[in-house]
């Protein structure tokens, strides 16, 4: 699962001239962007601008939707994600995902965390226990749930559930974590906790986050990309995008003139 050698300077994900069509409708137009290792990249933009669609291209979740057509290239390190030889299952283990709505399985907290390992055929109890603790600690929720690991995960609050989902994604040791508006359904305190967590996680993982919340993007990300109507209008260091954007559209959006 680990990649033998890589140049820290080279991007972990590179998107080149990516077009995506839902049937006849083009949802992404000529996207070019690259993501750096151990950085948080935020995608912002109004609803329907294609930022989530792009996110879902990285772990090929779009495969599940009928009549999706992808043109162009996304390379994950040296591997072409949309190549015929790509094993989707391995790809998804290396690129984890956290969804907009927390979606714990109707199982115990423990089983939620070890799900990714179990489906990979890991059944070694000590390894599973170890993974559960490590993942829950990484997701900063260990202290809250350590006494009720075998209770149903459905009994958790929204913020806790979302952190469980993050822990579940971490458990399989991915390289990239995709976050699709992870805080949109959470209260400010839970949001804050997740944001602190993201800051913590970027030491080990590369994070790509889609968000509607510009303050959030400003707070957590290193790089921000602004999407509008399927196009990547502008991408650059977060500070620059928020203080001195090159495009007027970006500026309009950030200052709240539309969107």
């Amino acid at each position, binding site marked *: 699962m680990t990649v033998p050698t890589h140049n820290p300077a080279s991007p972990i994900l590179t998107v080149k001239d990516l077009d995506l069509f839902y049937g006849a409708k083009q949802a992404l137009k000529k996207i070019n962007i690259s993501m750096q290792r151990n950085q948080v990249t935020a995608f912002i933009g109004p609803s329907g601008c294609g930022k989530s669609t792009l996110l879902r291209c990285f*772990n*090929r*979740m779009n*495969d*599940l939707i*009928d009549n999706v057509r992808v043109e162009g290239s996304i390379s994950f390190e040296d591997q072409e994600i949309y190549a*015929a*030889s790509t*094993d*989707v*299952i*391995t790809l*998804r*283990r290396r690129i*984890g*995902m956290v*969804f907009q*709505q927390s*979606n714990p*399985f*109707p*199982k115990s907290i423990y089983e939620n965390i070890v*799900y*990714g390992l*179990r*489906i*990979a055929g890991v059944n070694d109890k000590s390894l599973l226990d170890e993974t559960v603790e490590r993942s829950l600690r990484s997701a900063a929720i260990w202290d809250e749930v350590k006494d009720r690991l075998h209770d*149903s995960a*459905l009994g958790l609050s929204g913020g806790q559930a979302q952190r469980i*989902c993050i822990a*579940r*994604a971490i458990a*399989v040791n991915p390289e990239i974590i995709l976050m699709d508006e992870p805080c949109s359904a959470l209260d400010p305190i839970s949001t804050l906790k997740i944001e602190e967590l993201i800051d913590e996680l970027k030491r080990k993982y590369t994070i790509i986050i889609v968000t509607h919340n510009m303050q959030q993007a400003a707070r957590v990300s290193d790089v921000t990309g602004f999407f509008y109507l399927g196009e990547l209008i502008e991408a650059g260091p977060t500070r620059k995008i928020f203080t001195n954007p090159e495009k007027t559209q970006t500026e309009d959006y950030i200052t709240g003139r539309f969107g």
Partner: protein
Amino acid sequence: MKKNYTQASRRRDRLAELLIRICGLFVIVAVVWILVMITRVALPLFYSPKATSIASISLPVELKQSRLLSIGIDETQQELFSLDGKGLVHFIDTRGGTLKESVPVPDPPPGARTVVSAELVSKSLYNLLWDTGVVSSVKIAFSSTRSESGNTIVSHEVSADPEGFFPGSGAFKRSFVRTIEGKGAVRVDQLESDRIRVTWRSKETDLFGNEKATTSSSEIQDPLPAAITAVVLDHAGHYLYAGTRNGQLMRWDISEPGEIRLLDSTAVTGNSPVTALNLVLGDISVAVGDGKGGYTAWFPVTAAGSGEGKQLVRTHVLRPHTGTVSAILPSPRDKSLVSVNDQGVIHIDHVTSERNLLTLKGAKPVAMLALSAQGNSLCSLDTAGNFAVWRLEIPHPEVSLGTLFGKVWYEGYDRPEYVWQSSAANDDFEPKMSLVPLIFGTLKATAFAMLFAVPLALLGALYTSQFMAPRLKSRIKPAVEIMAAIPSVVVGFLAGLWLAPLIDKVVLAFFLSFIIIPVMLLVTIFFWRLIKTASPLERRLRGKEFIVLIPIVLVGTWLAYLLGGIVEVQVFGGDFKQWLYSVLGIRYDQRNSMIIAVALGFAVIPLIFTIAEDALSNVPRNLTAASLALGASRWQTAWRVVLPSALPGVFSAVMIGFGRAVGETMIVLMATGNTPIMSGSIFNGLRSLSANIAVEIPEASLNGSLYRVLFLSAVLLFIFTFIINTVAEALRQRFRRKYGRY
């Protein structure tokens, strides 16, 4: 304006709520009402029998000095009669105790002056043994008509029956005469010296129409273990029974003229004398009462081990009397017996159910007992010369919890068994109403059907909800739902008249297809895995995989058909069913449990499929997405996330299917042979509770035992489904708490 609007909508809300409540209440009331109604029909089965004392009169003064031989009573408890030693029949009004009329027995034998004994042969027919040794028959019958004013008027008639005339000479203790239709008659005399003589009079008609009568006579030569204390002869004149002072019961076959064969000599009471002996209606069981009050019923049973010989076996133990049993009187209507002990305690028992129906106690020892021709009235005459008359209400003597749910030793059976056979052509038939074979049949049909239906329906639902292309799904699901709308009579008809003969021809192929098709599917799946995920071919076939499987299933069926023929010839010598019977001893019924499994399964599959599919489809997409994003395959997602999440719904689907299978009537009725047998074999048929109701209710007489037992089985079915549904709902709630919200 706005205020009005809010008020109106609030009013509408309240109205809707009220309407929903009323409808819900109506449903509950209707269901409870149905349960109450069917229970009300079934409940009288368990009411205790009733005897109402109608009259208690003393013997009219005119008869105080008479030597009475027999008594009798009419059906409406208005008139009774007594027969005296002079050959006079005295009719007595039960209301006043007055003598209404004395009628001499018509056509007494010449020279005869007094009657020695009288025997009730059958309903209202008496054989009289005269002092000259001649036996003659007399019919003393009551008939009742309803007058215009609504009163019942009883009339009586005394007539001679020339058929029963049998000459003889000498002094006898007792004599029995039985006429044998068209062949003559047989007479058994118990002589003073405890010897028994049998006389046959055969009548033959030669080709010219001349009648030739021959008479032969023979005495029983077998040594008797002790003095004879009771003798009884069956109605056909075939078997003679005698009880002895030391408690032996002997049985002779006297059916062939000139031949007396001792069949049994069995200790029946444990040394206490046999004091009362009589045959239960139907002449198969013999009831024995002894000097200590022991009261049992016996009939010949093929002894275990011994080839053909039948031995008398104690099959029923009735409630013992407190003292010597002095007389046993069989009911003319069913397998009930009236017995009395030396203290005048009268028991009414039913042999089959071993129920003590009634216990009546008079003040004085009873000298004589009589039942009316229909068994509705009981009359006793005690030693002090007092008549007592009762009206009996024993509507369901043969039904008890024991006969409904336990093993019962029925006449002609070698051991106690669970049997359902409610009716037969003859009146003296013993109804066998064990619900156990029917409950067994219901469960068996359900079990086989579920075995067939649940895997198919659930896997189908899983595939449809998780894998099938949405466009295909939108067509296939309604198609399966239409399957549920096929009238069950059509399914049953096809199963019984098309499928059963078809499978009958290709049993082996049917079995082989269960092996061959899955193996072929596995092979296909193996090759399928070579197709890369998201390759163009995979993309094209995704959601339509089953189309590829259709030809494979067809080829599998064809292979099974071919192989079935080969295997039948090579392994089973050309005829599987013959092999099954001769080697394993298993009988193959054409309409068997396999047919039921397929037919009932066909009815249940759409139900389970639809509900399970809904439950599975209701599992939110974001759960499947989460699983897939963690690197699970679609199959892993379906199996580990979707199915557990939808478990409550899937479980409901299975239980609703189960409930439907339990209650299904027409399919089971038409696709099985309706044989109420208890056999776990897949090759045998069955009869279910519901099919049984459908089959038998048309022939059950209103408010008869069968009618009520059928209603009882309806109550059982009701309770059955009620319990299933309640347990299912409770379990579903538990699953819901444990596994999830969907």
